Every structure is written in structure tokens, then in C-alpha cells.
């Protein structure tokens, strides 16, 4: 009798174990199914996103490959910017030719990749290397000069470049002597970490140099005009003195 009872107890344990295992499996199956379902969903999302990315990439490729697909307004703007470079470079040639007046001729090398420094395309950097012809420079110590020229153009619109405000200050301020005086006065000021501005002792700031493209937002903010300007080297009569 006790053997039968033990056998029965044993079978019950087995049944309990099976039931527990089945129960555990059922629960884990649900979790697994949920995870698989989530993966399916994520896969669907990924597929949708990939298709969209491909479509966008294709659209971008197509727009790039079709050169004429640039909007006409943008193209006109590009041509206008190119015209500014052309006009400024010609003006630069004219004034430098007049400034090199001491010698008969000079050789100039112009960098063919001018750099536009503002979003309006009105301020350009040129790099020019001036060289006196060998025949004229035998007795000269300095035969050549390398200039970087920051050229700006104003077409009647309100000037946004500090350089223009600075340079268009009173005629008196353009005098070289006054520039030197102003340089002396700079010693009163405490230099700030921003190289384009000076801090007065009272915390007031004055801008000195034209802001760059990165700071183009700052250009929009009205700022105090510079009280002095760089020297007018045109008053030196010619650039030959520098080379």
C-alpha cells in the first residue's frame, strides 16, 4: 500500500513539474512572441525608412546630376556674385596699377580662387603677389611683395560690413597721422579675447575689424562705428616703396 501511495505521489510530482514547465513556457512564449512582433514592427519601420532615404538620395542625385536643375533665381544670384568678383578684381587691378607708379612695369600674380567672406557676396579676399621685373630689381633688396586684399563692394544697399562703416568714417579719420594717434590710444584699452574688438575699461566694446562669415549674425546688429580707420596708403603715392 505505501508503495502505491509513493508511486502516486511520484506521478503527481511529475505532473506538477510538467505543468510548471508548461506554464513557464507559455509565459516565455508570450514574451518571445511579443519580442518577435516588435522586431517585425521595427523591421517594417526600417524598410519604410530605407525606402524614403533611397528616394531622397535619388532625388538629390538627380538634382545634382541635372546641372540645369539649379533654380533660376539661385543661378541668377550666382552670376551676380560672379559679377561682383569681376568688378572688384578689375577695380583692384586699376588702383594697384596706378599705385605702382615709380617703375615702368610690375609683374603680378593673382590667385584664381578668390574667397567670398560674406553671405551677401559683397566681400572678397584676393591674394596677389607683386614682383618687380628682374631687369629693374638688380639693386633692390626686396624684389617682391605678397598682399592679401580684402575687397568690399557696396551697391547702394545699406552697408552691413563693419569695414565699410569703419572706412567711411569722417575724412579726418582716414589720415595716417590720426591712425597712428589712434594706435597710441589703443594702449589705454584692455584687449579682450575677441581679436576683432576692444574692451574699454568700463566694459564698453568697440569693434575694430570686419566680422567674418562665421559671425555674419553679428553684422546684423547695429554696432558702434570705429573712431579710426587704417591708413590710406594711397597717400604714399605708390606701392613701389613696399617692394
Amino acid at each position, binding site marked *: 500500500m505505501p508503495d502505491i501511495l509513493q508511486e502516486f505521489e511520484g506521478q503527481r510530482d511529475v505532473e506538477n513539474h510538467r505543468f510548471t514547465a508548461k506554464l513557464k513556457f507559455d509565459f516565455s512564449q508570450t514574451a518571445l512572441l511579443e519580442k518577435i512582433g516588435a522586431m517585425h514592427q521595427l523591421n517594417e519601420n526600417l524598410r519604410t525608412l530605407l525606402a524614403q532615404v533611397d528616394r531622397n538620395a535619388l532625388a538629390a542625385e538627380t538634382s545634382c546630376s541635372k546641372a540645369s536643375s539649379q533654380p533660376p533665381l539661385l*543661378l541668377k544670384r550666382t552670376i551676380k556674385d560672379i559679377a561682383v568678383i569681376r568688378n572688384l578684381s*578689375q*577695380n583692384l*587691378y586699376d588702383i594697384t596699377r596706378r599705385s605702382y607708379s615709380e617703375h615702368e*612695369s610690375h609683374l603680378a600674380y593673382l590667385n584664381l580662387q578668390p574667397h567670398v567672406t560674406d553671405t551677401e557676396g559683397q566681400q572678397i579676399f584676393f591674394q596677389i603677389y607683386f614682383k618687380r621685373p628682374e631687369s629693374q630689381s638688380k639693386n633692390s633688396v626686396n624684389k617682391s611683395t*605678397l598682399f592679401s586684399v580684402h*575687397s568690399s563692394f557696396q551697391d547702394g544697399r545699406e552697408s552691413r560690413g563693419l569695414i565699410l562703416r569703419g572706412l567711411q568714417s569722417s575724412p579726418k579719420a582716414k589720415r595716417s597721422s590720426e591712425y597712428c594717434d589712434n594706435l597710441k590710444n589703443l594702449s589705454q584699452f584692455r584687449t579682450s579675447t575677441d581679436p576683432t574688438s576692444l574692451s574699454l575699461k568700463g566694459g564698453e566694446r568697440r569693434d575694430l575689424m570686419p566680422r567674418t562669415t562665421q559671425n555674419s549674425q553679428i553684422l546684423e546688429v547695429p554696432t558702434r562705428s570705429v573712431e579710426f580707420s587704417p591708413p590710406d596708403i594711397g597717400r604714399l603715392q605708390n606701392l613701389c616703396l613696399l617692394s
Partner: protein
Amino acid sequence: MMQMRNTSYMEHKCLGFIESKPCYQHLFYLDKEDSYEDMKQKASLAYLLRQSTVPRGGRHMPLHERLSLAKALAKAALQFQGTTWLHQIIWRSSSIWFFGLQEDQDVVSLKNPYVDAEMKCSVEPESALTDMDTQERIKNRFLFCLAVILIEIAFEAPLDVLKQSPDNSQCRNETASDWSIAAKLSAIVGAKMGMTYQEAVVDFLYCFSSPVTDLSKSDLQMTFYSNVVRKLERLEYDLRKA
């Protein structure tokens, strides 16, 4: 290298400006002393092209460098056309210069091209092209010169060398005019640089097949920009991506 960018120009010595005008201002900066060392080591594009034809010891110009240079020159042509910087010369590869080149380098970097221009007190009339055939057949001399430079860049040799090259037997003729050589080479330049490049060369040679040949007209400038500059930019982009 020598390229002074807006982030660093304030480090240079400001000299001032010349002739303040209401519309224009040119503020001059004197470059640093170390830039002068780079300026001493200069070479013209013609010289570099001639060097690259030397079978042994010649310096190699990588394809992407040549393509980038062609794009830069096309863009510069549009930017400086009609100005005295380019207009006073028949601009050729001998007018285009590179500075800071190292003698011992096998690969030539063609970044930062310069153009030379003589600044004289008196402006002389422009010199004419040498051969009559070319003079008669070209529609726009400025664009023809650009086409020739692009052909020279593609074949890595000056035009006079290309005239004599045994590789171009079909074009080989020392007495042939510049026009006829350029026209023949323009038909096969695509094999070297791709069809986009070839189309650009043909566009320059035949002035975009446009009845308007005056590049000062904005319509032609727009065609120039969209048909050539944008396409070369795209080609350069594709090459970099590959």
C-alpha cells in the same frame, strides 16, 4: 598653405587701403615672411605639363587634381573674363602658376592656381593668335584658350607637344593649326577624363553652339555656369566619392 582665409587674415599686418571710393574698398594686408619662401618655388602649368611627359623622372598629376584644376580654371574664367587680369593675354598654360612646389615630390599638387599679369603704366593692344586658320575659325578666343588648357590638362602635355606626339598619330601634324589640333583632340578627350569633361571642352571650342558669343552677356554666363562649372563640380564630387 599660402591661402589666407578669413579666419586668419587678422594675423597679417594691415597696411591700409588705396583710393577710397563710395562703392569699392580694398584693404591691403602684408603677408607673413614665411609665405615668401613658398613664392620662390614656383612653376607654370606649361612647365609642369612638359615635365609630366618625361618618360622617367616625370612628375605625375593625379586625375582628381587635374579635374579639380580644370573646374577651378573654368570657374575663374567666368569670374575674371573681361578683366585686365585675363583679357590682356592669350591665356595659356604658361600663364598659370603654382607656388610652394617641392622639387622632390613625385605627385604634383595643383591647388591654388595663379595667373600672371603685367602691370604697365601704358596698356598695349592685345596680341593676336599666330595662325590665320585658328583666328578665322574660333568663335570666342577667350573660350578657345580655355578649351586648349583643358585639353592640355587632360592629356598632361602642352599643345605643341601634343602636335608631335606619336600617340596622337591621327592628329600628328606640326603645321596643323591650333584649332584643328584642338578640335581633333576634343573628340577623344572623353577617353581620358570622361564625357562630361569632353562636353565642356566641346562647349568652349564651339562657344556652346550659341549664336551669342559675347561672354559679357548674362545668358551665356548662365549657360557656361550650368553646363560646365556645375557639371565639373558634380564630376569632381563623384570621383571623390568613388
